[in-house]
């Protein structure tokens, strides 16, 4: 089997995550889907680093994780405060983009 399959898998996961982001209303779940997408990217990166035989890919994946961590922390904080103020974690409820 060729390691390219890992890329296919990553692409699949990424797509699933993206669709999830689009169809779920619960902010938390949306967030999870985003994480899923990030992970898919990481997988691709790792696979690449294996293919090219250097560790830069892994480094990038590592950074992705760090950033993801930071992002999750802030994002969840936002969700919590949102929930406090509106008693709901639905993305649509937070539709303040339209006046």
């Amino acid at each position, binding site marked *: 089997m060729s390691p390219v399959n890992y890329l296919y898998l990553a692409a699949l996961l990424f797509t699933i995550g993206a669709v999830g982001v689009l169809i779920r209303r619960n902010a938390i779940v949306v967030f999870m889907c985003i994480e899923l997408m990030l992970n898919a990217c990481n997988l691709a990166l790792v696979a690449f680093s294996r293919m090219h035989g250097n560790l830069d890919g892994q480094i990038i994946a590592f950074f992705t994780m760090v950033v993801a961590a930071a992002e999750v922390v802030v994002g969840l904080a936002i969700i919590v405060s949102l929930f406090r103020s509106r008693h709901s974690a639905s*993305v649509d409820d937070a*539709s303040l983009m339209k006046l």
Partner: protein
Amino acid sequence: MENLIALLVAAPLLGAAVLLCGGRRLDRSGHWLGTVLAAASFVIGVVLFLDMLGRSADDRALHQHLFSWIPVEGFQADIAFQLDQLSMTFVLLITGVGTLIHVYSIAYMEHDERRRRFFGYLNLFLAAMLLLVIADNYLLLYFGWEGVGLASYLLIGFWQHKPSAATAAKKAFLVNRVGDIGLSIAIMLMFTTFGTFAFGPVLSSVGETGEGTLTAIGLMLLLAACGKSAQVPLQSWLGDAMEGPTPVSALIHAATMVTAGVYLIVRSGAIFNAAPNAQLAVVVVGAVTLLFGAIVGCAKDDIKKALAGSTMSQIGYMILAAGLGPIGYVFAIMHLVTHGFFKAGLFLGAGSVMHGMNDEVDMRKYGGLRTYMPVTFVTFGLGYLAIIGFPGLSGFFSKDKIIESAFAKGGAEGWILGGVALLGAAITAFYMTRVMLMTFFGEKRWQPDAEGQPPHPHESPKSMTIPMVILAFGSVFAGGFFSIGDRFLNWLEPVTGYDHGHAPISAATVTGATVVVLLIGVFLAWAMYGRRPVPVTAPRGSLLTRAARRDLLQDDFNHVVLVRGGEHLTRSLVYVDHTLVDGVVNGTAASVGGLSGRLRKLQNGYARSYAVSMFGGTAVLIAVTLLMRAV
């Protein structure tokens, strides 16, 4: 000596400036200043005249170049003056009559709190009129031409609180503007044809261009003359112009301004001589107006309007003469001068009558005034005799000469024109007699005025009668003085040229015929107005009479066709502008607005639908890149 020329204009101009900007502090002395400056201008004129007499006939013209007015590449308009015999004649007439009327106005306008401004306007008029006649190129003439138009606008509408006066002023200016189109187009034609519009070069190089161009120029000049001199079809303003104070009617609308058209044609004689068709048009216009004015004059009960009609008709004579070419130029000007005297005198007389009759203008409410205002009666009577061409008085000589030269035109044309001129003479005699009788003879038909004051007619003060007397002198003796030994002919001939034409009938016959028709006219008038009492309220009268009372329906025509039509046109255009032109613009704006409104619906504010679009966009991008790679 030629440096004096500018002073002719400068003096009254200064007066106008001072009086109009001077403010109230001049209210008490202003009219004296105005009169003095007018007189000064007259004096300068006389000085120049004497100087001119001192020189031989062919180098009498004086030139003065002040400065270059509009210097543009290939276009030179100068502020420059030319004073030849023709101009000199006008200068003397204008300043002389003008000064007299200034004097007259001092008393006439005494009770008007805006007398200072009145004199300012009068001076302005003098300046403009002088500029008109001493200009040495057509553009400067145009300057004066419009200037007198402005002055007449201001003076006709002097009593602006009267809507009729304001309207009349506006009408006069507009009709004149129509004529001005003619003048400016004529100037443009000259410029494109000769590259200049100074009198000298243009008139001297007439021969080098085709007759077509000259005819066009001639017709355009004629149009201008019609506007200024109230000739058919642009005569309609003159009657209404009588709304102005009587001195104004005397000076501007009888003696001087309205004759500017004649001056223009005579001045441009060279052009007309080379363009027979244009000349024909001129004589036709003259003949028509001659009768038109006379007929109108017969029907008017308003003394000033009747006189206005006669003015129209007399100028018709002049135009007719001017249209005859070298045969008639001199006599046109001669009649112009004599007419200046007696018509001004008549108007001043009419003013004096109105002065005594609580500004009543309806002759049917006069009657039997001769005993109450003898001086007025005498002077007016002399003017009357002069205008009807009573043998021996000015009018007789000048008009008779015109009729002769009309016959002298020769051929059928000559007969027709001569006949018309004779007929005109008859009608003139008729309506002038009518005026005379209705005003000074018969029983009193006085009516109390608006305040119920019965009029108590009285002779006017000296400052009014003296000018009248002087003018009466002029109207008695001027003609004779000019004609004896052809003084006037010799005086003007170097400028205008002269030829005898070939009269089919002897001068004596013509004179005889003139006298006969004159007597017929007088008799008819006496029969109608002298024998039986004149009803106070005008009888319905024949169809012609009624038409004549309404200026032969000219005004109604104007009203229906021009005014109404214009109103409809403008109103519809306003509508079009608002709905169509602006509508297209606003429509575009609205459609854009609608589109954006529709697009706005896409912005539903849900983060997820935005995400979908982003996601789809990404997909599209990938597809594009792949395709690019593929191809």
